[in-house]
């Protein structure tokens, strides 16, 4: 049987980087094919070439045995491909149906037929078990649903080969399970799925076959049934990796961050969280667990100074910062890795060095009387790039040329580099490869052991469990539990996260 897809000798060079180096890959019809590799290995580049977003410098693509040459994504779509990008591409103020039928709108007498498009989108959604309301407006929907909309977009165009770039990075475990059901159902209808992930557990449980990329080359093509996570990791990194580790406990010191009775309002005028009280002491990592949308993000934004509190107080090292400007908080010793690395944590069109500088542009190390010490700034940027293993071209290039994981490293490196006594980290390892996660975890632990205080939010329960000295669980805008990680299991935390313990804080 002819394979669904064959790539031969795909090569792509960007200024200073060989992103894809003569990659061969065969994808059989009706299989779930995982593509893994470290940050910057060339996964997104390969998929983008496959989807016609930009041309390869060399190489050949065959779809069902036919050589194809895509000059745009529209060609790829016509050939039966669909892609869900790492960052979604949806019109926020339009409805689900409008987004799905975009450029393929059903018409009646030359006008767009809205009710027909709603009907058709509803049909497709139902056929594949994608729970989405076609009339909902995009900006009101959680990320898990947005992703289903992206998948709908592809299915509406009758994609036979579906490419998913890190689809699980933004999902809660429940959403992820739903996505996996959908993917399996699609395979059972004869579709072919290519998906990128950094989580080897997902590779093992979902895929039939896995291709490993390293430094732009394809280094292994394995049957999932015949391999194990250690082998895959070895191919990815070229060395042995310890996949499981728990940080040893440590003796905490003085309170660095104290939050008392804090409440704030969310986007839609509803209370996002109320009466939050907790402290983070020096030498401890406090993890916040919760299903996305239960107030964690707003709580962190309020502490970081990006959202005004309704009541309550925040103090940092004993000084009240409840109403302080971001700059004041930063100079008082707060660093912050935000959840939204595209919209908040980086500025796409700004250079790599400009992105590595933000928040410290007024530090005496980088300027005198308002004049930049450009050499110090560049040296600092280069040393961060080296220490954190950020793969980038020249530091004057726009940061948008970095791969997803390397962008995340830019944010983490910047925030951890100034020795601020309090680090607030939202999803610190989202999108990172195994080695980078290991490295960041190691940094966090060393920072803690050096007397730093960390407030961490993560959708990865395993991460929260592995690193935290204490775990706060949020549900419906309240902190419902304060748990000792050595005494709980993922399942136990899960009960608090879903509100199964309604009797208030304990534990």
């Amino acid at each position: 049987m002819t394979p669904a897809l064959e790539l031969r000798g795909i090569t792509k060079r960007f200024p200073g980087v060989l992103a894809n180096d003569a990659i061969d890959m065969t994808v059989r019809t009706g299989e779930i094919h995982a593509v893994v590799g470290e940050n910057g290995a060339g996964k997104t580049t390969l998929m983008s070439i496959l989807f016609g977003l930009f041309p390869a410098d060399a190489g050949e693509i065959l779809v069902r045995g036919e050589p194809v040459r895509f000059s745009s994504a529209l060609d790829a779509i016509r050939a039966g491909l669909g892609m869900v990008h790492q960052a979604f591409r949806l019109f926020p103020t339009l409805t689900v149906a409008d987004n799905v039928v975009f450029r393929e709108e059903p018409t009646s007498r030359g006008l767009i037929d809205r009710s027909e498009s709603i009907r058709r989108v509803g049909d497709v959604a139902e056929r594949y078990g994608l729970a989405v309301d076609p009339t909902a407006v995009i900006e009101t929907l959680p990320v898990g649903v947005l992703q289903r909309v992206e998948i709908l977009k592809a299915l509406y165009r009758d994609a036979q080969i579906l490419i998913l770039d890190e689809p699980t990075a933004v999902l809660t475990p429940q959403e992820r399970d739903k996505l996996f059901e959908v993917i399996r159902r699609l395979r059972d209808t004869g579709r072919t799925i290519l998906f990128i992930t950094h989580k080897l557990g997902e590779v093992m449980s979902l895929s039939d076959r896995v291709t490993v990329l390293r430094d732009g080359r394809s280094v292994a093509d394995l049957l999932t049934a015949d391999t194990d996570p250690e082998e895959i990791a070895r191919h990815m990194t070229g060395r042995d990796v310890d996949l499981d580790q728990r940080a040893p406990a440590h003796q905490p010191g003085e309170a660095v961050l104290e939050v008392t009775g804090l409440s704030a309002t969310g986007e839609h005028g509803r209370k996002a969280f109320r009466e939050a009280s907790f402290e983070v002491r020096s030498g401890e990592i406090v993890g916040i667990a919760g299903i996305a949308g239960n107030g964690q993000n707003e709580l962190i934004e309020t502490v970081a100074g990006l959202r005004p509190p309704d009541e309550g107080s925040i103090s940092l090292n004993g000084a009240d910062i409840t109403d302080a400007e971001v700059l004041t908080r930063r100079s008082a010793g707060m660093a912050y890795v935000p959840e939204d690395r595209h919209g908040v944590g980086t500025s796409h069109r700004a250079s790599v060095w400009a992105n590595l500088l933000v928040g410290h542009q007024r530090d005496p190390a980088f300027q005198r009387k308002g004049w930049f010490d450009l050499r110090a700034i560049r040296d600092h940027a280069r040393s961060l790039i080296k220490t954190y293993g950020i793969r980038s071209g020249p530091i004057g290039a726009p940061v948008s040329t970095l791969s997803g994981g390397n962008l995340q490293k830019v944010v983490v490196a910047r925030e951890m580099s100034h020795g601020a006594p309090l680090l607030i980290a939202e999803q610190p390892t989202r999108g990172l490869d195994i080695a980078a996660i290991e490295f960041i975890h190691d940094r966090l632990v060393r920072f803690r052991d050096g007397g730093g205080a960390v407030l961490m939010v993560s959708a990865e329960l395993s991460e929260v469990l592995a690193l935290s000295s204490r775990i706060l669980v949020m549900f419906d805008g309240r902190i419902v539990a304060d748990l000792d990680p050595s005494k709980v299991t993922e399942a136990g935390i899960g009960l608090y996260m879903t509100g199964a313990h309604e009797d208030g804080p304990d534990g």
Partner: protein
Amino acid sequence: MAEQVTVHRPTLASKVGAALSHPVVFSLVFAFALGWLIVYLTGRDPGFAYSEMLNGAVTGSGLRNTLGRAVPIIGMALAVSVAFRSGVINLGGEGQMVVGGLAGALVAIYTPGPGELVIPLAMVAGGVAGAAWAMLPAFGQTRLRLPILITSLLLNYVARAITGYLVRFHFLDDSVTLTSTRQVPEIARMPRMPIFGGVSLSLALVIVLVAVAWVVYGRTVSGYETQMAGLNGRFARYGGIQVERQTVGVMVVAGTIGGIIGTHMIIGDAYRFIDGELVVSGLAWTGLLVALLAANHPVMILVAGLLFSGLQIGGLAMQRNADVSWRLSQVLQALVIVAVASRLTFGWFKRRRTGPSEGELEPAAVGEV
């Protein structure tokens, strides 16, 4: 020999191709080609029209006039770019120029003393007045959440009305039929430099302003912070940049430049403040177009400003000598901007066959990874 030729040709073709794939270069070629067609269709000789335009812009007194007109165009482009680059949509350049122009004119007319004193004083007065006028929409946005985009634009009409009233009822020169102030005394006029047949000293001033902008953007904390705010406001706030305070500062700078240019137009060009003249000239809007074409880059503003100035001055000569209306210059300016704004490139035409690629129709990214 023959071999050399065959080797040489593709490189030249590919160089031309590369240049054409640059959106600005392509836009210029696109505009002039379409202009060519328009002139041709009206039955005139496009080659002759263009050569008369070029001659008119750079030969004889043309060069002096081109440089002279470039002063306010570059100045106003710089003023608007300072705001745009920081993410502040200031459309009030015209009002800031008019208010500053009248303030500068009055100081120049009524202050006794030597030119060395009166001229700088007039410039300062014009700058301060322009800045004060620009602060109205700035505070409107930071305190009352009224978008600068709208208020600054509407205040242009208010500026015209107020200055018109002041001139008509308080500072009217009865000896002429214009609604105008008295003439700026000889001694308080902007001196001319002994180059290119006598260009206003203000040309040196705008070149200095461009250089200052260039240095500020490349080397200073303020330049960095304003640019970061312009590129991504949420990122800037997150990085501790005080965007609101900065908005006021940026408007003050833009207004100051606008006011200085307005003053120059009176004491260095018209020598009297005539009601509505600065508005009718459309200089603030030409400046806006230049800033767009130059993508707000100070040095490119210098180049683009000279180009548009040459188009306007050359257009007059073309009308005289080739019987093609000077409005062609405006058409060309507009075509360039339309092409730049729609990011028209050579590749765009090639891609038409298959439709634009996904990236070009990129809706805002929501959610993230």
